[in-house]
């Protein structure tokens, strides 16, 4: 074989390599130079929490691109921020986590001048105990965490947690990949305080969950796909997720167990390390619009804290006014301060058994 042909052969990969490099560079350069060179807003929240059309509308209005990242639970959010992840512009922590975030100085105070729609918020949500003056956060959506079930396989009648320990449904149950929610489930069943700081209580909860381990199919933050594939018949999940599945699978229903459920409010906040603080404010203001709030409730099946949205919310159960209708054992989770690590350890113990 002649020399140059041989050399060509040997260097062929390098040639391909360089063409790839050129390919990538030209793509990036075109991105930078194009008239559609977007500013980016980095959004960090649980999955399926922002409908595509809502995000697209904002992208269109402000000529920006939204990058939507997911976390499984609040603890993961905290972990990421603690590890020094900067660059998220808007995050969506739950009520109890806000306290931890403020305490660790991870949030940037909101400038109310940029949030004219803040007034749309209903009274009860204006003075949330963990952020009385909305200094750092603005309520986003609220709801409950209860039980979703497939009525094709599961008995309709009992609206109780005893459904979870029924051997008929062995291996058909999904629990949440969330220390607070899942341990609270056990605590509630045992009649204990879901905001307990007692290690003994937590141990009992862990033991209870462990003894019913064979009932559990999967721990996941997102049971929707498993309910759709019918691998899971009963899921401890969020009200909105059940609502979304029910759209495609009307046999899936949701209830708040008589033993009680978690009531939660998720909030929008701007972390300290945000790059686009102004854009973040614009986004938050956009979410607070009456029309947007209503669309969120209608599409996601969660309740809105936005009073101005109420008239446009189709399902009356999802309006901000229904907060007072929540039963006495539908409770908020509270921040546990220094006892937080007890829960984290209990969770580790549960998962490791």
């Amino acid at each position, binding site marked *: 074989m002649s020399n140059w042909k041989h050399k060509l052969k040997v260097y062929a990969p390098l040639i391909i390599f360089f063409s790839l490099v050129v390919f990538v560079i030209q793509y990036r350069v075109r991105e930078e130079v194009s008239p559609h060179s977007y500013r980016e807003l980095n959004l960090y929240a649980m999955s399926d929490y922002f409908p595509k059309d809502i995000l697209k509308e904002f992208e269109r209005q402000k000529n920006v691109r939204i990058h939507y990242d997911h976390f499984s639970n609040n*603890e993961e959010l905290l972990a990421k921020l*603690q590890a020094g992840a900067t660059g998220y512009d808007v995050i969506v922590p739950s009520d109890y986590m806000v306290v931890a975030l403020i305490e*660790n100085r991870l949030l940037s105070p909101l400038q109310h001048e940029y949030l004219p729609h803040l007034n749309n918020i209903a009274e009860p949500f204006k003075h949330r105990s963990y952020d009385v003056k909305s200094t750092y956060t603005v309520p986003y959506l609220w709801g409950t965490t209860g039980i979703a079930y497939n009525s094709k396989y599961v008995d309709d009648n009992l609206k109780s947690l005893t459904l979870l320990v029924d051997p008929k449904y062995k291996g058909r149950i999904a629990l949440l990949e969330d*220390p607070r929610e899942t341990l609270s489930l056990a605590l509630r069943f045992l009649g204990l305080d879901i905001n307990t700081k007692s290690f003994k209580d937590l141990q009992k909860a862990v033991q209870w969950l462990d003894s019913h381990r064979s009932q559990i*199919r999967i721990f996941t933050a997102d049971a929707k796909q498993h309910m759709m594939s019918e691998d899971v018949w009963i899921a401890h999940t969020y009200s909105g997720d059940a609502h979304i599945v029910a759209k495609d699978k009307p046999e899936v229903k949701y209830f708040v167990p008589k033993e009680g459920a978690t009531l939660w409010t998720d909030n929008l906040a701007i972390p300290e390390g945000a790059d686009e603080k102004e854009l973040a404010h614009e986004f938050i203001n956009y979410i607070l619009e009456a029309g947007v709030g209503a669309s969120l409730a209608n599409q996601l099946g969660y309740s809105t804290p936005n009073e101005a949205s109420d008239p446009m919310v189709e399902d009356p159960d999802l309006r901000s006014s229904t907060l007072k209708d929540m039963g006495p054992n539908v409770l908020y989770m509270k921040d546990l301060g*220094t006892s937080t690590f007890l829960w*984290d350890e209990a*969770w580790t113990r549960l*998962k490791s*058994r």
Partner: protein
Amino acid sequence: MKNRSIGTPLVNLGAWFWLSCLVLVPLIFVFLLSFMTRKTYGGFEAVWTLSNYLKIFDPSMGILILKVFGRSFLLAFVTTFFCALLAYPFALFLVFKSGRYRHFLFALMIIPFWTNFLIRTYAWFALLSDSGWIMQLLHQLGFELQSLNVLFTWKAVYLGMVYNYLPFMAMTLYINIEKIDVKLIEASHDLGAGVFQTFTRIIFPLSIPGLIAGSVLVFIPCLGEFVIPDILGGSTQVYVGNLLTQQFLTARHWPMGAAISMWLLAAILLLIYLFKKNQKTKWGEAQI
């Protein structure tokens, strides 16, 4: 001739930069981290303590950590065993009986190894799901099963592990068995030994280094595996890898995670040491 290095200072710089910044120092830091204390909400501060290590002796927690390690060792062992069981006959076939298809078959074995393991793992969902193909097939054949009950259980995890590591084991075994001197086998045949005798007395003993190498190369990554239990096990099975990820993410207990890493590291270094020692003993002597 003296082995005189003519490497330029740049070469030394490059190599040492890599070694120190990207390998040694991070590992040393993890060692230090394991002695630090966790702050209230997570994070870590340099308050030195042995508590993370002493946790092993804490009656409830310690047992759990040992359980997790035990589970991982079992997983690694069973995976390695089945990989070897499946790959060994294949490697033998490939080296001795495949004739001109040898390279083709070898390539075919290697290709899955180079494709993304996440995707190969995910591919099992479609088969194992209760609405998946295997269930559908069983229904067609008349089996009235309610649930396959494999996906998200330990069965799926073990299946996924063997599936992922099999090509790796096969590759290692093949490379080693290929090196066996054909003349020894020919000699054995000439001396009147049957196929079985040739195998037990010549081929098998000579292939043992290969088996050991393959096993070590599969066993160690298995110990640290967390993705397959996470995805195929539905997060219900916790192995060392999952425990570590959890300590660093959800539980935000970095010093504890570091301590567990150290335990894992110790176990692995011990295995590597035993492996290297084994390499020095003479396994290659065929019994003639």
